[in-house]
């Protein structure tokens, strides 16, 4: 029995619930997305919503922001029934959402994007550019982005700055409730810190902030209360000061998470060199020195660095996606040059990409089809698909990775983020790769699935696969890696061995002497 | 028609004299055609080029269009000819109204303009205050020839349908009016009248469906031979040999059909010669003859198996 400790502890200033949600239900066909959600927000608090992907947080946010209607239950805002018919109405009432996916128009300027919902007009009904730029300037200054030109197109910004622009757009309107849906997913630690400062000042203005995140350390750093979701229900709401991250995780998964510690496992003993990279420069790398490192069989090497430091480019270069400008790659001491992913795959290399929606998965296609995508020979005979072989193999792969799914013929889009990522892994494991490149292997993955993925990756290393992992989450690298290479400005700033692992050491190298330049280009 | 031929021959003689007199300075004739994708105009162009070679006393610049409705390129062509300073423009207008104003400009620039194939709109000419003769066949009269042949063969009260050309095109309108005149004269029973956009496959489809709706059709008047071919194929598929078909244009492909009776008649308007004849008339005026007046009708002839 889950502990339903609906604590009605007094909030900082007022105890009256500002927004209360009672017994909310929402069905999509036969799927119960929300199955009894109850919680309340108090004025001026920062309230975290946590839960595994698919637990119902996103659906709740979409209901609050007027995207979906709900089936049963009720919502009261300041004592009145709240049931927005569309997103516009929700905004009018003062409920703003910063979505997980970007809603910016790439080719328009930052100013245009910020004013897109309400373009200022001159007396003659024409676009008032001056006013538009002024508003944008104000909005950016408010969150400390004083160095950005509002006339520049959004496409000139990096992913982290786009997120900040998105936030500034939401903040320019007077909001009563600001919902941040995984705002830090694409931010580096430093940018996250800046965001938290902004959130704190918003809170000081009396705005209620709803904070959705997979990162419990963030939740514990800035939130006042936390509500845990599981299987479409709210399990508990707790004061942050009364609980611990471990306690929250337990409620999220409904069981004790096998402590995924790095200390218990037997040390791995790396074998021969699988890949040797010498002065590798991809086309995206403006510098000439390039990067050099070794990757051995049976070891996990982590690559850390800020967004834009050239981490992804190394993987793409190794896999033959991006052309290589200079430098050499040796595989098993042989000089190799891959003219495309096909060559790399034939040489036993797999690549779990950063963005599973754009590069890793075919969302509308069945789970089985995605698992066999890189291994079509195994499930076909002279060009004809062998469906029974495909299903058998997919089932085997799925059970090995503890994949949770309905039917193998369901589209991959029906899975939660963690299970989608497992499908990506299954796709590459189907080829029994010798070398596996992974870019942000647990982005947008919930805590439970994250631990399972770590177990899988470690097991692979034990079986002798060479793994190269790029990640923005330092705890992830610290958990997984045998060595960590820290990148900045397309160059390796240093290499850390296990005893030296700490977030501090990584950050020191990542920012290093080039901190300022790094921030500008991010 | 005789008068016309004599006049043409005389003009030819005169022009040849003029030709020898100023060998280096041949008159330049700009020929503006409609869509060369239409084999009727293609044949006309070939006729004009042969004519240039034969006469040898003038220089021909010919311009065609992309498709039937592309009259903008005709307007551009007129303007280019004015800039080039040609002596005469011989034009088959794609639109009977749109072409009047640019042609007026050409006349004001002292260029002899001859309008053939499709007559410019009388109302528009009056508005622009220009007098311009028309050299060409009587599409309505030609269609009536074909329609009358059908009427004679079938007799009063026979049930017929019309397959029209592009709605809005002048020659399509004229031919429809000609067919309708025959319908009135021979008291035929017009069951249906539809466009097949001059095209064989569409005529085949449209007529098949008309035949299903009206199995008692006795005669078909098609506004061109391409569509008549489609009708004939539809009749073959339906296994009907009791329905009389007439067409228009006398393209080579219908020759065998007329011979073996699958088609009753078509109309030849001697398209191959039409541009050449108009050029002769234009050169005559360039050489000093009087301006043309009214409607200079070119020959048309009913073609049947005999």
């Amino acid at each position: 029995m889950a502990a339903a400790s609906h604590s009605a502890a007094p909030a900082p200033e007022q105890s009256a619930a500002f927004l209360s949600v009672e017994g909310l239900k929402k069905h999509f066909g036969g799927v119960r997305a929300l199955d009894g959600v109850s919680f309340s927000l108090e004025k001026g608090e920062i309230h975290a919503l946590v839960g595994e992907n698919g637990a119902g947080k996103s659906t709740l946010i979409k209901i609050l922001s007027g995207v979906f209607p709900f089936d049963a239950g009720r919502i009261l805002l300041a004592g009145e029934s709240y049931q927005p018919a569309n997103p516009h109405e929700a905004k009018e009432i003062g409920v703003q959402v910063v979505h997980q996916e970007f809603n910016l128009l790439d080719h328009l300027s930052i100013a245009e994007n910020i004013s897109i919902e309400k373009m200022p007009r001159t007396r003659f009904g024409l676009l008032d550019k001056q006013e538009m730029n002024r508003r944008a300037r104000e909005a950016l200054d408010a969150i400390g982005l004083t160095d950005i030109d509002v006339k520049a197109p959004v496409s000139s910004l990096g992913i982290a700055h786009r997120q900040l622009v998105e936030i500034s757009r939401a903040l320019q309107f007077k909001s009563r409730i600001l919902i941040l849906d995984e705002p830090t997913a694409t931010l580096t630690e430093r940018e996250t810190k800046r965001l938290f400062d902004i959130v704190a000042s918003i809170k000081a203005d009396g705005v209620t902030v709803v904070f959705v995140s997979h990162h419990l350390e963030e939740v514990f750093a800035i939130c006042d209360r936390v509500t845990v979701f599981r299987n479409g229900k709210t399990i508990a709401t707790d004061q942050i000061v009364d609980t611990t991250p471990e306690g929250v995780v337990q409620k999220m998964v409904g069981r004790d998470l096998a402590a995924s510690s790095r200390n218990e496992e037997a040390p791995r003993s790396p074998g021969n060199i699988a890949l040797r990279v010498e002065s590798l420069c991809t086309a995206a790398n403006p510098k000439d020195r390039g990067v050099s490192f070794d990757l051995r069989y049976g070891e996990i090497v982590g690559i850390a660095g800020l967004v834009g430091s050239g981490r992804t480019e190394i993987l793409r270069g190794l896999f033959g996606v991006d052309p290589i400008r200079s430098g050499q790659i040796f595989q098993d001491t042989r000089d190799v040059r891959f003219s495309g992913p096909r060559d790399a795959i034939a040489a036993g290399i797999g690549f779990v990409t950063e963005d599973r929606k754009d590069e890793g998965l075919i969302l509308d296609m069945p789970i089985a089809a995605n698992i066999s995508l890189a291994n079509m020979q195994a499930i076909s005979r002279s060009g004809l698909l062998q469906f029974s072989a495909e299903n058998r193999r997919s089932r085997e792969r799925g059970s090995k990775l503890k994949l949770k799914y309905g039917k193998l013929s369901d589209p991959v889009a029906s899975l939660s983020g963690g299970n989608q990522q497992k499908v990506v892994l299954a796709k590459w494991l189907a080829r029994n790769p010798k070398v596996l490149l992974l870019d942000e292997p647990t982005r947008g993955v919930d805590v439970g699935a994250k631990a399972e993925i770590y177990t899988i990756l470690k097991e692979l290393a034990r079986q002798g696969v060479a793994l190269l992992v790029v990640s923005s989450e330092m705890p992830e690298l610290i958990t997984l890696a045998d060595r960590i290479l820290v990148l900045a400005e397309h160059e390796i700033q240093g290499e850390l061995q296990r005893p030296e692992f700490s977030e501090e050491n990584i950050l020191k190298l990542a920012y290093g002497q080039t901190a300022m330049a790094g921030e500008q280009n991010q | 028609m005789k008068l016309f031929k004599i006049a043409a021959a005389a003009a030819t003689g005169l022009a040849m004299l003029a030709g020898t007199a100023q060998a280096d300075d041949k008159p330049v004739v700009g020929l503006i055609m409609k869509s060369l994708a239409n084999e009727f105009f293609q044949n006309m162009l070939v006729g004009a080029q042969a004519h240039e070679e034969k006469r040898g006393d003038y220089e021909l610049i010919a311009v065609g269009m992309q498709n039937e409705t592309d009259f903008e390129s005709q307007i551009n062509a007129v303007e280019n000819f004015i800039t080039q300073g040609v002596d005469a423009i011989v034009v088959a207008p794609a639109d009977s109204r749109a072409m009047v104003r640019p042609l007026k400009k050409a006349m004001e620039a002292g260029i002899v303009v001859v309008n053939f194939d499709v007559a410019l709109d009388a109302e528009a000419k009056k508005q622009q205050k220009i007098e311009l003769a028309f050299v060409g066949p009587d599409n309505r009269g030609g269609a009536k020839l074909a329609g009358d042949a059908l009427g004679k063969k079938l007799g009063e009260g026979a049930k017929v349908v019309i397959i029209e050309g592009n709605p809005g095109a002048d020659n399509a309108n004229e031919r429809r009016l000609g067919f309708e005149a025959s319908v009135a004269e021979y008291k035929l029973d017009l069951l249906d009248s539809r466009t097949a956009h001059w095209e064989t496959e569409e005529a085949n489809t449209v007529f098949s469906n008309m035949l299903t709706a009206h199995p008692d059709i006795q005669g078909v008047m098609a506004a061109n031979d391409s569509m008549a071919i489609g009708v004939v194929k539809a009749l073959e598929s339906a296994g009907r040999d009791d329905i009389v078909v007439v067409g228009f244009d006398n393209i080579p492909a219908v020759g065998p059909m007329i011979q073996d009776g699958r088609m009753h008649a078509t109309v030849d308007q001697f398209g191959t010669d039409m541009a050449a004849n108009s050029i002769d008339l234009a050169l005559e005026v360039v050489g000093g003859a009087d301006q043309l007046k009214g409607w200079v009708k070119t020959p048309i002839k009913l073609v049947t198996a005999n």
Partner: protein
Amino acid sequence: MTTQTMTEPVQKTSRFSVRSVLQNAGIGLALLALILFFSVFTEHFLTPNNITNILTQITINLVLAVGMTFVILIGGIDLSVGSVMAFAAVVAGKAITLPGFGPAEAIALAIVAATLTGVACGMFNGVVSAYWSLPSFIITLGMLNIARGAALHVSDAQTIYSFPYAFEEFGSAMVYGIPVVFLVALFLVFVAWFVLNFTVFGRLLYGIGNNEEAVRLAGHSVFWYKVAAFTICGLTAGIAAIVYMARLNISSPIAGIGFELNAIAAVIIGGTSLAGGRGSVIGTLLGAFIIGVLANGLILIGLSDFMRQMITGIVIIIAVVLDYYRAKYAAK
């Protein structure tokens, strides 16, 4: 407390799900409604002769639409099929009327000439648009003009005629009242259905339409798959040219103007997404039927040409709007 596997709601459809069945059923129902309507309100609609007519009349569009389905599934479009059909017909017409061949050889020559012409044009479209990653819309618009010009050039804008009698026989042959040319088209539908659903090639075409990058990163040569889709589209244009010639016994260089739009309409009405990745060739078959039945029925009912054109346009829009709602409700 039960632990169930939670799934996020999905609004997209997949060809493997129950939804795709619903999808085709939806179009099938629309077709059934049209057929019922015309059966009630016209005298001759449900007669054997008229059914034969409809089958003959949709054949060319169906053949073109089958090829178009491949191109649209990978997120492309081919505007050149009508012109390529005319070009192939003219080349084949030249071949079939070459002196010195018996009827059998002449027909074989024509078939080879038409398919090769179609394949060459389609391959050109595919290679150019895939190699430089250019929008196929504009490349095939170019090909539309190239092929039309070539058709006029090769034929001197003359209609080519007098083909061997056996060819004509084939064009009008029937099996139990079903035109043989339609059976050819139906066979193409079957082959396309098989290829799209049961081969690696078909699977990857759907994949490319959904997420080209994912397919490329999985080590597949996206370039050649795209070229193949366009080549298939060109091939069907060549086959349509043969059907045209056999049915009308002429080759006209101005044939097929606007046919590409009818073929695209059949594919889209059939539920294939213009964005690619979703759809089926069975839907295309039903889409071609809807267009053909409508064209036929509205003439039988005696509607004027202009009204007919308007209603055809309205029905296309209604079909697509209905499909939107059907997909939405099927997802719930």
